[in-house]
């Protein structure tokens, strides 16, 4: 089966700085990778995803990097803002897509300091 781990349970950064949140996965056959943002008391919200045939994908202020060699995934948030404070989860799925569910990491709590 798949196991997913995050390197840091909490990350504190200054407002305006860049943030990097890391995630490691175990199954080299994993095909689909997603980052979610979860604010307190709410459901996770999709941020960005990447498939195994890519190593980088950019969105608005966010970049996901995938290193399949070491089975490592990271989320970079540029110029963090107070609204970025949340718990960030990586999720890993197999080539079957969503039908068999996703394996989630435990989450990193991103704290933005003024």
């Amino acid at each position, binding site marked *: 089966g798949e196991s*997913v781990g995050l390197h840091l349970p909490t990350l504190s950064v200054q407002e305006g700085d860049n943030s990097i949140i890391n995630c490691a996965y175990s199954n080299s056959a994993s095909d*689909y990778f*997603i980052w*979610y943002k979860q604010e307190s*008391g*709410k*459901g*996770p*919200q*999709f941020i960005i*995803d990447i498939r195994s045939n890519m190593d980088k994908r950019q969105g608005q202020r966010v970049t996901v990097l995938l290193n399949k060699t070491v089975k490592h995934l990271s989320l970079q948030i540029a110029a963090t803002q107070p609204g970025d404070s949340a718990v960030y*989860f990586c*999720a890993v799925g197999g080539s079957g*897509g*969503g*039908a*068999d*569910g*996703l*394996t*989630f*990491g*435990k*989450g990193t709590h991103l704290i933005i300091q003024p």
Partner: protein
Amino acid sequence: SQTIHQWPATLVQPVGSPLSLECTVEGTSNPNLYWYRQAAGRGLQLLFYSVGIGQISSEVPQNLSASRPQDRQFILSSKKLLLSDSGFYLCAWSSGLSWQFFGPGTRLTVL
């Protein structure tokens, strides 16, 4: 656009009482549907998923059950709640090879 609803938003139930949580999806057809539980300080644990009406797959043994009586309706139930059933329950849907969209969640406290 697609939306996903869950209710109730919060629930406090005594040990041994029954449970019924409902999830409905709008704006899509034949979605894959999922129930997750999130304990405090932990990630999401997949409980059940369904690829169609009446088709339920269970990921973990427990005293919970799921049903899908209609295409866009997913219900999580229990006949007798345990203290360990407390948590944040999330319903999600996906369409084929895509990410999962999550509902707002139900906070269940079993006393």
